């Protein structure tokens, strides 16, 4: 399985981290909960849920750090019975990003921490400057939106091409 990314510059560092640290899942996300890259998930909606929770955990831990220590905690580790999670922040020129990763006995917290440092270094050199070019929508945005929402709410039938089993891209 390969890492899947929303932005191409994320792919190499993320794949390298996954390979080196031998983790089961990895998510690189923005503190708002938006995913930039993932490894190990099969459904996009599951990725979004994991990102929402990961961002919330990180935000809570950071805030708790500010309350207790005057500055945010940057890393969080949680040991489950079979799997463990590690959440940490990495600074980039695009602002901080969060890595959430889950691993089992194939890896260890020490290895994850070590390869996380490498990941941060790789990411720092890979990240391009912010490019906020708006997307160019083709077609009629309002009509398409109305049609999509109507289908979503069962108020219209999907066009033939859209029927049948749908698999949100991973």
């Amino acid at each position, binding site marked *: 399985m390969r890492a899947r990314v929303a932005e191409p510059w994320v792919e190499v560092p993320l794949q390298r981290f996954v390979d080196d640290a031998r983790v089961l899942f990895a998510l690189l996300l923005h503190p708002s909960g938006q995913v930039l890259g993932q490894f190990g998930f099969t459904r996009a909606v599951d990725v979004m849920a994991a990102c929402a929770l990961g961002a919330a955990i990180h935000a809570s831990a950071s805030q708790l750090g500010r309350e207790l220590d005057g500055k945010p905690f940057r890393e969080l580790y949680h040991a489950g019975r079979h799997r463990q999670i590690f959440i940490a922040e990495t600074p980039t020129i695009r602002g901080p990003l969060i890595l959430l990763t889950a691993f089992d006995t194939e890896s260890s917290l020490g290895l994850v921490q070590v390869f996380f440092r490498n990941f941060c270094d790789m990411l720092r050199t890979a990240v391009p400057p912010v490019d906020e070019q708006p997307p160019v929508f083709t077609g009629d*945005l309002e009509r398409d939106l109305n049609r*999509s929402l109507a289908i979503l709410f069962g108020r219209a039938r999907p066009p033939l091409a859209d029927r049948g089993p749908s698999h949100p891209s991973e």
Partner: protein
Amino acid sequence: MPLVNYATREITCKIVYYGPGRSGKTTNLHYIFEQVPNDRKGKMVSLATQTDRTLFFDFLPLDLGSISGFSTRFQLYTVPGQVYYQATRKLVLQGADGVVFVADSQARQLEENIESMQDLHANLADHGMDVRTTPLVIQYNKQDLPKGLILGVDELEDALNFRDVPSFPADALHGLGVFETLRGISELVLRRLSAGSTAGAR
């Protein structure tokens, strides 16, 4: 900004349902969750107290399908409404691409609505978001209650909608206005996203 993947032509937007406690934010998400087919939604994640009050947030990922050439996904969040969850509301609001303010139409809740709206503005400002340009719609929920208990839409508009944003009367429990509200905020978010791009867009 919404996340745009140009390579795969995917857009992901974060929409936050904001408002005072018990105004019906979670009810909106529940209704949407029930309406949407399984292949277009993820699990609804609710971090709630034992009495089902939202503790951290509710979260519902939706797959809208293709819109104007982009595969579009929405992440719907609610915030906890109670006053003492101020810090949590601020965290959830981070990076929001659009906000639905769910107001409680009951006359006795007017103060709470106003306080919550002020709280929303303060939190947006704290995140460095321009209140005037952040996509926002208002939903006047519980309009199904007896007339003696609620304020009319005009009165609520006077009290809350000083920016003249799109507003929608609703009865979220039975789904009235929920769809329209989601459509309203979706349109604002996508229009804002496309602002500046004219090729092919209306």
